[in-house]
């Protein structure tokens, strides 16, 4: 017991000394799920953010000041995210925060960052409420680097009904996720406009349910020809695998931006021929250097490339804003972020609209073929 107490004390000393503040750096917080169900996405984002920071510091930082990254884990839970953000703002005094990668988390922390006046950039937080409050007013310190759910839902509906001509749709969504529920709502609305009909509307509980055969049996018996999956990677992979096991050979899967390469390990063959509406394509030549650098630094493929690229470019967007802010106070940075216009980051050109959403980004459709996600087409709904 005594030894254990000593061990605890030693850990404490290490922790506290690690928190000593280095002068002259600009601190940037990064909110990432390093443990829990979303750990795969979160660890990739942390890696790419560190890559971006190393790159900018190697060039001498911004206006002569180095960037220091403060990464806290939120275990995929709002409760922990709130505590982590509170700590970033009040203890570490960060200039801005990047993350999280989920709308529900950004919505939960929005009150906090907007009260404290510290900007927060969501990476793949696509729900409209991330940057807009209940009364439809823009939240002054909330931003995102990705497109929104209404837009994404419309892209999925357009692609299914208009491009693939599949009009008997089923949807299996996660009732515990704002992202999934939002996407479902906007998909259903647009799908009807494009002439589609939803024949099965089923739900599960993310993070807990792993067996979807009961719902899939219902979907199968409803005669759907397309199954829309607005979920996270693990659940989508399990759903596709279990669907094929139940003999659903003909049904086409269309998913959103939760696509991740690790889904292949889980779903294997069942992935083949599925379509994924997404923000970026791994084949984009502008990203080649990023993938190579990532591999050199971490000796691992950047499998969750959507999160990786968006996290990476969110950092570069922030660097640009810090440079333009003059004195990098949180308020000046927020102003610089909001007035971003025609900024070329790696994967796109960013221009902010009045609601802090990037304007008119193209949707990319990936097709799962030969063991990886490949560029299929670019779409912009009519």
């Amino acid at each position: 017991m005594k030894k254990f107490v000593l061990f605890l004390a030693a850990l404490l000393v290490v922790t506290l000394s690690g928190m000593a503040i280095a002068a002259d750096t600009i601190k940037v917080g990064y909110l990432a799920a390093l443990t829990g169900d979303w750990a795969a996405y979160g660890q990739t984002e942390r890696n790419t953010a560190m890559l971006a920071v190393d790159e900018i510091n190697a060039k001498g930082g911004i206006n002569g000041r180095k960037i220091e990254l403060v990464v806290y884990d939120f275990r995929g839970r709002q409760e922990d995210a709130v505590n982590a953000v509170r700590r970033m703002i009040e203890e570490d005094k960060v200039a801005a925060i990047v993350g999280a990668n989920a709308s529900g988390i950004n919505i939960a922390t929005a009150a906090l960052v907007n009260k404290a006046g510290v900007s927060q950039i969501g990476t793949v937080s696509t729900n409209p409420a991330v940057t807009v409050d209940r009364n439809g007013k823009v939240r002054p310190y909330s931003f995102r680097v990705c497109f929104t759910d209404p837009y994404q839902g419309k892209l999925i509906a357009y692609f299914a009904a208009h491009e693939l001509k599949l009009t008997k749709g089923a949807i299996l969504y996660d009732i515990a996720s704002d992202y999934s529920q939002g996407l479902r709502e906007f998909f259903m609305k647009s799908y009807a406009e494009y002439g589609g009909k939803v024949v099965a509307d089923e739900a599960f509980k993310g993070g807990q349910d792993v067996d979807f055969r009961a719902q899939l049996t219902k979907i199968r018996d409803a005669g759907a020809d397309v199954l829309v999956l607005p979920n996270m990677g693990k659940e989508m992979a399990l759903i596709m695998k279990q669907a094929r096991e139940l003999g659903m050979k003909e049904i086409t899967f269309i998913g959103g931006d939760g696509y991740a390469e690790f889904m292949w390990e889980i779903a294997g063959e069942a992935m083949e021929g599925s379509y994924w509406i997404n923000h970026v394509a791994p084949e984009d030549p502008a990203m080649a250097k990023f993938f190579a650098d990532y591999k050199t630094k971490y000796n691992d493929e950047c499998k969750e490339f959507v999160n990786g690229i968006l996290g990476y470019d969110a950092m570069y967007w922030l660097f640009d804003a810090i440079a333009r802010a003059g004195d990098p106070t949180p308020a000046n940075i927020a102003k610089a972020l909001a007035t971003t216009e025609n900024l070329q980051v790696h994967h796109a050109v960013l221009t902010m609209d009045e609601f802090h959403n990037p304007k008119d980004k193209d949707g990319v459709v990936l097709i799962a073929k030969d063991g990886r996600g490949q560029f299929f087409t670019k779409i912009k709904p009519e």
Partner: protein
Amino acid sequence: MSNYTEGILILLMINGIAAMGVSLLTGFTGIFTLGHAAYLAIGSYTTAILTLDYGLHWLPAVLLGGTLAMIIGYLVGLPTLKLMGDYYAIASIGLAESIRLIIENWQSVTNGARGIPGIDTFTTLPTTALFFVVMAYGAFCLINSRIGRAFKACRDDHVAASLLGFNTPRYRVLSLSISAFYVGIAGGLYAGFISFIQPVMFDMLKSTEMTSVVVFGGLGSMSGALLGTTIITLVTELFRPISQYRMLIYGLVLVLVMVFRPEGLLGRHEVGPALFRQLIGRHPAPQREERGPH
């Protein structure tokens, strides 16, 4: 005092109120629970819904949250508290999960699994301190009262207690009701502190944590429960930067305490002159009963 330190102090006192509730039931009445997160959920959801949807002032909302937790504790206790030992502990898991799942499925009222954001942050340091002092005073009075002695009698030997004329089932249900009230109040204050609640925050892990801080501090010691919750809360906050190891350390502490000191840090002693006298060896230790709660 920075906002962060203030936040930790508030959290300490909220957890302390909950720990006193659990200690009353587990430490003083000998009923192990693995489902007290449910009463925390009832308290915080009641407070959140009453303040947000009905525009009620937060003070009556918190008190109503505690009261509702107490009523549900009473209703739940009537049929299940005839179970003894770990059978009640198992039943409490089922009850707590059921309550959590009802909250999760009652979309129209609770907003389901997505939770309720934007709760007014009414929990300030002075209000929490006031709640804490009043409830701690109440708890210490209670355990030294006639009712408190009856609880202890139920814990130490419930057969003998019932032969002595104590209505043991009634006292067990009473203990659970008061315990649920404390935890419900803590839940209401927690909602006003964190400003966002969702059902997954009140899962089995939370229940285990609530009981284990009390075991850690000392079964049958109010001040032990408070000491336990203080240590565990501080350790969890301090280890946030190395969060991957946080839960591992927490689990290890739990096992090590059970292996080396199952009676907890303070055992059945309260922090006070008596403990101090005993520590410096001028007073023989009271005979310790190794029966434990059965």
